[in-house]
């Protein structure tokens, strides 16, 4: 058990940026909102899944909508409203909140609702990283129903999606309502039990994000190598070091897809890395040979400061180190790979776990 305070937020942003694998979007607004919420309603307690009580009711909250709209009609307390809506619908009160993904603003969304509601958050999430699609959550892979699910806006409107035949359908219906709500909303999924959280959530993720950010900041302050600090905190390896020489972007069916070419320097001299992305980094190849794929984490950070670089900020000339981290165990099973393995993203290749 620990307490998140305002001072932890910048570290969580860096850590969630690294674990966000190029996606998750700009954490700036989420950070500010979390800070304001904590100033207004106090810090938030973090419980490990095993610290939950036997009769715990854990509700997952997250944002839904368009990131570009979210920097204009900045979110308010929509996640709190969605939480109250789902509680009313199922007739149960939440005892803790949990994050759907540890990337971008979603990593701090539960902190905002939790501060307002006076609830703790669970040190776990539904991805252990970021993924582009709603159904790509370990909760749903391991049988937690995605419905009923509430979606709420800032005006006082909320809807409940009572039942759907798949998480994909739940997302489609929720998104249709979100557009009417002005493309910025939050959702809350019906409560999970302690047993469900322990069995289906990726543990330790908020702590890991905070520790990663803390390690990077400390290394910067002391003039040490931030890459080493990252790898000491989270086991993984440097896949490639180089200079970004080309970014090919295209927006198709609402996703930012594309590829990134990096020319090697130092240990990667004379080699070329190509990374495909769909919001998040999906597959990394060196000289045509696959070196890392989803669900393993492919993260680009600047070589000098260890700052994570999202795919939207990638540009020619950036010096980056590409780091690989093994996927959380829940993803490397046949059920996990069916939803978030390379084939789920249309690649005709099997998942080969990253050797560390």
């Amino acid at each position, binding site marked *: 058990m620990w307490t998140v305070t305002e001072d932890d937020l910048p570290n969580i942003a860096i850590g969630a940026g690294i674990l966000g694998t190029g996606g998750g979007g700009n954490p700036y607004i989420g950070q*500010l909102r979390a800070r304001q919420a904590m100033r207004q309603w106090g810090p938030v307690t973090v419980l490990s899944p095993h610290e939950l009580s036997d009769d715990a009711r854990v509700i997952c909250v997250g944002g839904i909508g368009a990131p570009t709209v979210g920097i204009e009609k900045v979110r308010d307390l929509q996640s709190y409203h969605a939480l109250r809506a789902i509680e009313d619908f199922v007739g149960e009160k939440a005892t803790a909140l949990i994050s759907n993904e540890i990337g971008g603003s979603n990593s701090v969304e539960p902190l905002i609702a939790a501060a307002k509601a006076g609830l703790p958050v669970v040190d776990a999430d539904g991805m252990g990283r970021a993924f582009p699609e709603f159904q790509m959550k370990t909760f749903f892979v391991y049988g937690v129903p995605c419905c009923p699910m509430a979606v709420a806006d800032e005006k006082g409107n909320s809807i409940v999606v009572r039942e759907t035949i798949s998480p994909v359908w739940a997302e489609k219906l929720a998104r249709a309502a979100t557009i009417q709500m002005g*493309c910025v909303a939050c959702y809350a999924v019906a409560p999970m039990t302690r047993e469900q959280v322990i069995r289906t959530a990726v543990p330790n993720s908020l702590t890991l994000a905070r520790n990663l950010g803390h390690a990077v900041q400390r290394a910067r302050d002391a003039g040490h190598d931030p890459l080493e600090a990252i790898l000491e905190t989270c086991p993984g390896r440097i896949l490639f070091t180089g200079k970004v020489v080309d970014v090919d972007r295209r927006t198709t069916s609402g996703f930012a897809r594309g590829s990134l070419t990096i020319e090697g320097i130092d240990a990667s001299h004379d080699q070329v890395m190509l990374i495909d992305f769909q919001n998040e980094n999906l597959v990394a190849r060196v000289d045509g040979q696959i070196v890392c794929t989803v669900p393993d984490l492919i993260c680009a950070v600047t070589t000098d400061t260890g700052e994570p670089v999202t795919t939207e900020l990638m540009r020619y000339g950036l010096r980056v180190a590409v780091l690989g981290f093994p996927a959380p165990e829940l993803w490397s099973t046949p059920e996990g790979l069916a939803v978030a393995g390379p084939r789920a993203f249309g690649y005709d290749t099997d998942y080969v776990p990253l050797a560390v």
Partner: protein
Amino acid sequence: MFLGVDVGGTNTDAVLMDGRRLVGAAKVPTTIDVTSGIASAVSELLAQTGRTDSIEAVVVGTTHFTNALLERANLAPTAVMRLSLPATELLPPLVEWPDGLKNAIGGQTYMVGGGNEFDGREISPLNRQDIADAVRDMQARGIRAVAVSGVFSPVDPAHEDQAAAVIHGAAPDLRVCLSHQNGRIGLLERENAAALNACLGEVADSTIQGIERSLEMLGLNVPLFMSQNDGTLMDTSFARQFPVLTISSGPTNSMRGAAYLTGVTDGIVVDIGGTSTDVGALVRGFPRESAVAVELAGVRTNFRIPDVESIALGGGSVISQDPWSIGPESVGYRLTTDALAFGGDTMTATDCAVASGAARLGNPGRVAHLAPELVARATADVQARVETQVDRMKLSRDDVPVVLVGGGSILLGDSLSGASRLMRPEHADVANAIGAAIAQVSGQVERVYSLDSGTRDEAVADCTAAAIARATEAGADRATVEVVDVEEVPLTYVPSNATRVRVKAVGDIAPSALRRPQN
């Protein structure tokens, strides 16, 4: 003829341009009050060229207004009013301003019903009663300026315009800044930009009046224009509304001057001064803009500013041998007294350039004793640092033309890796003032369009018309206005097909703007 003045940190430069021809140039030290430095540069130039009758306009590049933010001096008591409720309440205006600056402007904020969705629908109707109440409160508090920001005002500015009308009706003397005229999508950053302009309005008024008065005393009764940071200019009434647009106008003037002197429209400009080197990119003749949010006096804004990177390397950079380093310390303006080649006892980057024969200045005999290995190492080091910086600014791996300007450009050899051509134009030491003198007038508009209610072509056409109108309003001759940049970015995760369009239009100064207003 146009008279261009650029106020730099060290020198104030003035040039007189007759079309493409440089008629005269003057360089004087910058003064703390800015105005007297401008006056002495201009009077020296006039003494040299001996004529005032054919001068049509004066263009001044200075970042003096924005210095007031850093000093927190003379800022008007300013309020911010957001049109958004019930949205965005958790993050009120000025939420992350440094306390010192917030206190300096009074820090009063109001949130009222209003604002729009991304597709133009109203979040809620504009609450005129709450606006009127807020204005009464502002008057009671002695507030003299107000920034108004509506959610998605770049999509539909009507609520901001209507709020301005209510404010004007109730308090005609209150200076009003509307966010949709101040920035792009990104509520907090755009709102901050409007608030900064609002609180600087009075400083801009008095500075511009001071410059006008000193030009009049020199017999120059011609219109005054100010450089803005995209390499274009604005008339003084526009500059009073948007003083922050002058930020970073120095590097952009240099880049525009470099483009003008060489005819290069796409390439990299390297401006090596005494202490630092600015590297920027030209795209279609204009400085490339930074894509990321910029902080000004600790406030995050989404003002466009030029994408210029500086490194601490210049002609006066001090070389130390153990451990090896060139800069960041520099002898700066004391180069001609402190450097070895000028009889001083500090080894500078310039001394190595003289010793290698690359530069001919000072007394080469005084640097003859420098070891060839040391000179070679310094030369290679300078070259490599500039090459790395040029590479960082490029957009692709293709070689591009590179233009060298600034007094420190003697440090570089005749080739540069990554450069398809390396050019050192004549008069490169006053490229900044030339950039001011030749500037055109621009207008830029960014809006979000829902493609459910219109086609992409209609969206681009609407945005283009707005940009042309903005340029004309800023003093451009409608007949010469052309569109120099159109950017269209579809919004992700919006299945209803919304797109963000940004258009920039540029034209020559209108003849009507060259007639001095009678006031």
